């Protein structure tokens, strides 16, 4: 936990131990405190339900990725079939159709690195500028950004398509990368975070010492923004990795497909005359597709948490 949270400690017990519990806690020191919240049956049940709701599809995916096409039809969805074909499935997923899955994986990585990476970079630059510099039109920009957060990307996909079509950019990777570069929510988050995390006095001190603005940004501000950057990076990565609708309308050539589109093409083979039915590879492919995201979350978890909490408590 970062320092802003500890300064806000008076509010913590009230939040976790429920209202009206402060006085008894003083009289009986052995009772649950802020560190050891009381058990609540209702909360436990609700949380368990949500855990089941969230985890069951994942378990289903993991179990069914071990089955052959025959096994899928013959066995119950929530338990293993007699044949354990996970390794074969993984190998087939990567070799099917001349290894097109690898191509889609690399495409997705490229969209994430350029799209989500670029979106994060722009959000950090913009958020820092909006938080720490005064210039005319700031209120207008604020209103625009807040407005843009409310508009789902899906709603903009068709107008974007028409615009890109005029520029002759459809059916190229740019059609996916360029719209991904814009993340109003990321910008807003960085703005709030930069306001909190960078003391203006620090910047003034650096200026007095004679540092240029670029140097201040890269050597003073950037390290302080690290947790926020990771949070925005995770947000944009998840959004780009899972993007389906934008590539769907922008891309025609399957050589540029991301994994999401590629898997849906594999799935639709089952609806085609003479099509090769490969539900087992669709399932294994889906499992492989979510693994990098799970890894990213687990590895960056602590930044993610502190990044989210920042700005929510202070003031």
């Amino acid at each position: 936990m970062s320092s802003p949270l500890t300064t806000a400690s008076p509010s913590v017990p009230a939040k976790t131990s429920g209202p009206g519990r402060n006085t008894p806690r003083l009289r009986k020191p052995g009772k649950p405190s802020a560190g050891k919240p009381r058990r609540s049956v209702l909360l436990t049940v609700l949380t368990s339900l949500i855990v089941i709701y969230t985890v069951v599809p994942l378990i289903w995916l993991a179990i069914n990725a071990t089955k052959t096409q025959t096994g899928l039809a013959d066995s119950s969805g929530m338990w293993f079939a007699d044949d354990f074909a996970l390794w074969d499935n993984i190998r087939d997923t990567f070799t099917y159709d001349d290894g097109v899955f690898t191509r889609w994986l690399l495409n997705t990585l490229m969209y994430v690195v350029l799209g989500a990476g670029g979106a994060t970079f722009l959000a950090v630059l913009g958020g820092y500028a909006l938080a720490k510099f005064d210039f005319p039109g700031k209120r207008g920009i604020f209103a625009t950004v807040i407005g843009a957060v409310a508009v789902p990307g899906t709603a903009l996909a068709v107008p974007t398509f028409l615009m890109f079509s005029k520029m002759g950019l459809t059916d190229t990777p740019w059609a996916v990368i360029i719209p991904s570069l814009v993340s109003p929510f990321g910008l807003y988050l960085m703005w709030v975070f930069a306001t909190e995390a960078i003391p203006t006095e620090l910047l003034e001190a650096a200026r007095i010492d004679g540092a240029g603005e670029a140097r201040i940004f890269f050597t003073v501000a950037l390290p302080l923004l690290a947790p926020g950057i990771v949070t925005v990076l995770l947000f944009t990565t998840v959004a780009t990795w899972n993007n389906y609708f934008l590539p769907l309308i922008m891309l025609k050539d399957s050589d540029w497909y991301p994994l999401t589109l590629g898997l849906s093409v594999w799935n639709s083979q089952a609806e085609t005359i003479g099509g090769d039915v490969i539900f087992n590879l669709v399932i294994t492919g889906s499992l492989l597709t979510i693994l990098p995201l799970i890894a990213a979350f687990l590895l960056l978890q602590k930044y993610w948490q502190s990044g989210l909490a920042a700005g929510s408590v202070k003031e």
Partner: protein
Amino acid sequence: MRRKTSRLLRGIALLSTLALGATACGGSDDDSAGKAVSASDIQAALKKGGTVTVWSWEPTLKTVAADFQKKYPKVKINLVSERSGDKHYTALSNAISAEKGVPDVAQVEYFAVSQYALTKGLSDLAPFGADKLASKYTPGPWNAVSEDKAVYGLPMDSGPMAMFYNKKVFDKYKIAVPTTWDEYVDAARALHKADPKVYIANDAGDAGFTTSMLWQAGSRPYQVDGTNVKIDFADAGAKKYTDTWQKLIDEKLVSPINGWTDDWYKGLGDGTIATLTSGAWMPANFATGVPNAAGDWRAAPMPAWTKGEKASAENGGSSLTLPSLGKNKELAYAFVEYANSGDGVQTRVKQGAFPATTAELQSSEFQSTKFEYFGGQEANKIFADSAANVADDWSYLPFQQYANSIFNDTVGKAYVSGTKLSDGLKSWQDASVKYGEEQGFTVEK
């Protein structure tokens, strides 16, 4: 999924042999129109080389494209794997109206050829010599792609109908395999009584299946003469079909599973769907989609309406066409010709496609092919026989794609509520008439 199914299971459009009217006169919509393109022009283009963009979802074209490129190293076939159905036609129509990104070759199902030809979206292939290929194809598919002297595409495959049945299930309950639709209803009752989990078929309302059934029953609901259209679902053939099928629906003897879903593949595999009446292209899907039931299934002729009668219908199938706005016409035609009339046909048949060419259908090699999946049965004999018994005076609407898209809102009601199937067809008719009039067709009710 249901919509896609309708697209897929749609029968071959045996267009009316009458002229489609002045608007559809072929030949004026293309750069090379009017002047014949000689074989040597095509050869020269092949030597010069270039790229041909092909939009298609036909899986066997991959090998064909590779072979073609090997034969003509200067030509590059850019095969864009399409998803079948609505998405494909939306993309194609959008590209044509935007005049941008139109493919050089596009797969178009038989039912939709007239729609694109009528709006001048497709090049006439007769100047390339396609008109001389007429005798190579079975009449059904050829009628669907040709119009007077104009030819709008070369048939890729066909789908004469047959009944696939799970022999293991029929043997287990000692029920005879039906040869007429009356026997079919009896078998449906017997099967469902023997095991309530078993249904004779799945049917949750499917435009392609229903129109193919009407076709076989002798109903001709659509009459098309240019922009004059007549829609009538009240003839004797339609009554034969609705009377029989109403029994299956009323007694809940058909399983309410949509085709082409994973549930469907599962049902075909575990014996809960006992028969499937569809096009002759189905074996390829059986082999990869239902591998666990290999050996259980057999093919049989489609049940008849009266004992001994031999009437069949078509279900599904598509052609390769040259959109008018595409480029590299000579190369594009050379590829289409190679794939659907030349060496490509053999390649595709070997991979499980069902041909539209008479030579392949009648070859002894084709007819004596033993299907391991069907326990060594020579099923192509049944399919070829069915192809020969297809009545060739059926037509689809020049806006069949729309009509099929509203099937579930009209006829579909008969499957989920108390609406009679015949009333459902009537409301489908009314809605189609209304749309046709809005589109400027003269519709006679």
